[in-house]
């Protein structure tokens, strides 16, 4: 008869197939769980944030970013806005983003059609709602 070690209930088995004592197997299982939940410390939200629900064409959110005095656009090859959003499941709306009054993005058919995150973790030049990343 074989004794199989089930990680979730190691105490029911006196010995694992690899010869590990049940106490060791239990300790390893506990260690694995601790590694995962220690990870939670890194993910807990300690920051301050607001959220705003846009559901009508009459609503707008605006953010003015003051550029630093030593900012020279010629020093950069590209710029991107990173906007933290959660879309509904519908497709009957467009999302429009303007920069200094000029439309820079019009996402038709809902935000699920948009290009998602891919930007390198470089310089976030301002705090959200939109973070401008320049590189």
């Amino acid at each position: 008869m074989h004794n199989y070690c089930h990680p979730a209930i190691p105490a029911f088995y006196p010995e694992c197939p690899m010869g590990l004592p049940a106490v060791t197997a239990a300790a390893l299982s506990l260690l694995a769980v601790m590694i995962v939940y220690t990870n939670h410390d890194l993910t807990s939200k300690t920051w301050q944030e607001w959220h705003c629900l846009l559901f009508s064409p009459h609503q707008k959110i605006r953010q003015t970013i003051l550029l630093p005095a030593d900012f020279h656009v010629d020093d950069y090859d590209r710029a991107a806005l990173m906007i933290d959003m959660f879309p509904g499941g519908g497709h009957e709306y467009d999302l429009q983003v303007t920069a200094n009054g000029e439309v820079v993005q019009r996402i038709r058919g809902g935000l699920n059609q948009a290009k998602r995150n891919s930007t390198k973790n470089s310089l976030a030049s301002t705090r959200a709602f939109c973070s401008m990343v320049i590189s």
Partner: protein
Amino acid sequence: MRQWYEIDLPLTALDQRSFLTIECFLGGRGDGKENFVMVFGDYTTVEKNFYAGPCFPESDADTSMVKIMPYDGDYRFEQVTPLYSAGTNSAYHNGVEWQETIFQVFGEYNPAAIEYGSS
């Protein structure tokens, strides 16, 4: 899924200006049931010159295993990054007027950190 959405910004928008005004709004049929967008923002620190909020994931290493398993819709790590901007000013238009302090704030409230428009 809640996450960062990337929008290319023409460099001409930054040329010959000391500021950049971004506006975000819906067109079409928003209804608040299925057709809506929740926008999150203002991840500030007390010092104001640091960003402290969800990171821009570069790889799986920037996401959280424990948050993926139960799936709460946001699996990003927190990250602290120095800010380069001189300041920001955020506002919300409800269809009638602009407001600057209507946002519901979560986390540890710090009045100094929510003071918009500082430089």
